């Protein structure tokens, strides 16, 4: 089973991203998934967490994710909170959306990826809406779900016109992720 914890700010679509990844695996790859929002106060701009579990058997653990295989951070300012990497497993992946390299993070035994997904989203969508592209990058880097599965889930969850634009962004991000695969910085 793979456990992914998503960190973002209210309004950035972390909950939708968690669902998108789960749907891609569950509906388009015949696997099992569980996705849910953090159990905290959700307000626009406030730190928000969401969770996805992926597996080949029905997923029964419904508690929050304490030892993720992967942490995805939508907003570089969340690093200041200091809890994004909490519990990240040895050998896990830390994926950060940031326009610049952050100063040293206390990461050990994990692989670190930084991608400027906001720039990519601005370019394709004309807006800094990163959630579908973040799922694309993650899928590209890890291969945990296929690009086709992500595409299917995007078209299920968005109205046609929005889906097309979002898939453009996610596909671009997916290809970028594939290029980065195995090229993360070992920390």
């Amino acid at each position: 089973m793979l456990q992914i914890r998503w960190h973002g700010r209210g309004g950035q679509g972390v909950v939708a991203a968690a669902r998108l990844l789960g749907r891609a695996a569950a509906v388009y790859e015949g696997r099992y998934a569980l996705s849910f929002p953090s159990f905290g106060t959700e307000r626009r701009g406030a730190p928000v967490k969401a969770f996805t579990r992926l597996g080949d058997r029905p997923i029964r653990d419904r508690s929050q994710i304490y030892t993720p295989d992967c942490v995805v951070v939508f907003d570089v300012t969340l690093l200041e909170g200091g809890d994004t990497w909490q519990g990240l497993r040895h050998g896990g992946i830390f994926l950060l959306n940031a326009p610049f390299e952050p100063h040293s993070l206390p990461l050990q035994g994990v692989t670190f990826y930084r991608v400027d997904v906001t720039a990519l989203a601005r370019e394709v969508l004309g807006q800094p809406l990163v959630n579908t592209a973040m799922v694309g990058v993650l899928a590209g880097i890890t291969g945990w779900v296929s690009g086709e599965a992500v595409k299917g889930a995007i078209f299920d969850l968005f109205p046609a016109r929005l889906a097309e634009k979002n898939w453009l962004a996610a596909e671009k991000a997916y290809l970028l992720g594939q290029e980065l695969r195995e090229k993360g910085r070992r920390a």
Partner: protein
Amino acid sequence: MRDYRNANEAVALAVRLARVEVVAAYPITPQTAIVEEIAGQIARGELDAEYIRVESEHSALAACYGAAVAGARVFTATSSQGLAYMYEMLHYASGSRVPVVMAVVNRGLAAPWTIWTDHQDSVSCRDTGWIQLYVETAQEALDTALQAYRIAEHGEVLTPVMVCLDGFVLSHTEEVVEIPRQEEVDSFLPPYRPAYYVDPERPAVFAPGMGPDLYPSYKRSQQLAMEKAREVIKAVDEEFGALFGRRYGGLAEPYRCEGAKAVLVTLGSVTSTAREVVDRLRQQGHAVGLLRLRALRPFPAQEIREILGGAEVVAVLDRNCSFGLEGAVCTEVKAALYGLARQPQVLGFIRGLGGQDISQADIEEIFQHALSFSPGRR
């Protein structure tokens, strides 16, 4: 069809598949998504139902009551304070024997104010004469909502049903859900055709004033209907299983209780996480098991005696507190075991109030506690 849905969406799908005719509800987190989705279904023409907008939960249930008395299949949903506000009407519905089905998306009660899950809301309504079924997954929420109509509308039951599902842990958690086809559901659940309903051609009174000479006989009939509901719940679950391939154990579902020294009793979504812990502890050689109570009313006392009678220690996980005593389920499990020649020790654990996460480690700790409990110590 294999889909990826949360339990709120699953319940709304069940309402559509059940061809519900009247819906009246008032929004409250975390239930709101159910009635929003139903409103959408009606607006899109997917469900031919009357949606009555009301100013409160009390009125929501009053409207459902009226529609049910007129012979319609009805649905409503609420949570927490909303359920508390319905309290008076809960008794009207059960006393008048109208088969309302209501989704209760479990949420703690204020104060302090919370939107997160526990069972205080529905457990506080334990004695309102409603059947209460607690579900473990989004799939079971959908399937149980369908089963609930068969149970509630059964001629010898005619008792309203609460389908209780944990807020957020189920209501806002997406997972794989198999959505039954309409034809399959139609064959399982025929249209509601009550023997008695308000009809100008056949004047009748529902909920009349009643003197002490007859009132007790009405209450007795409610109790007998609940007794009847025991077998109906089991039979409906069996029939559903034969048609759809999914069964939920009727009133209570044991998991790996064979030869178990310590058994955990659960209600709701925590069961799912507990199965994981039971498997791991079994693998490590610990004789542990799990008993999930699906029905709180009617209470599965017989099943509890049969399944728990052989255990040495029973740990009851309550997501509620009957202040001044203990967790409500703990008390009831003890009462069910009363009179057995060899009674297991019963330990109560109150966890997960107001959305407090219940992790595998928390459940394992409860099992360790139970396993290390020596029978001589009380």
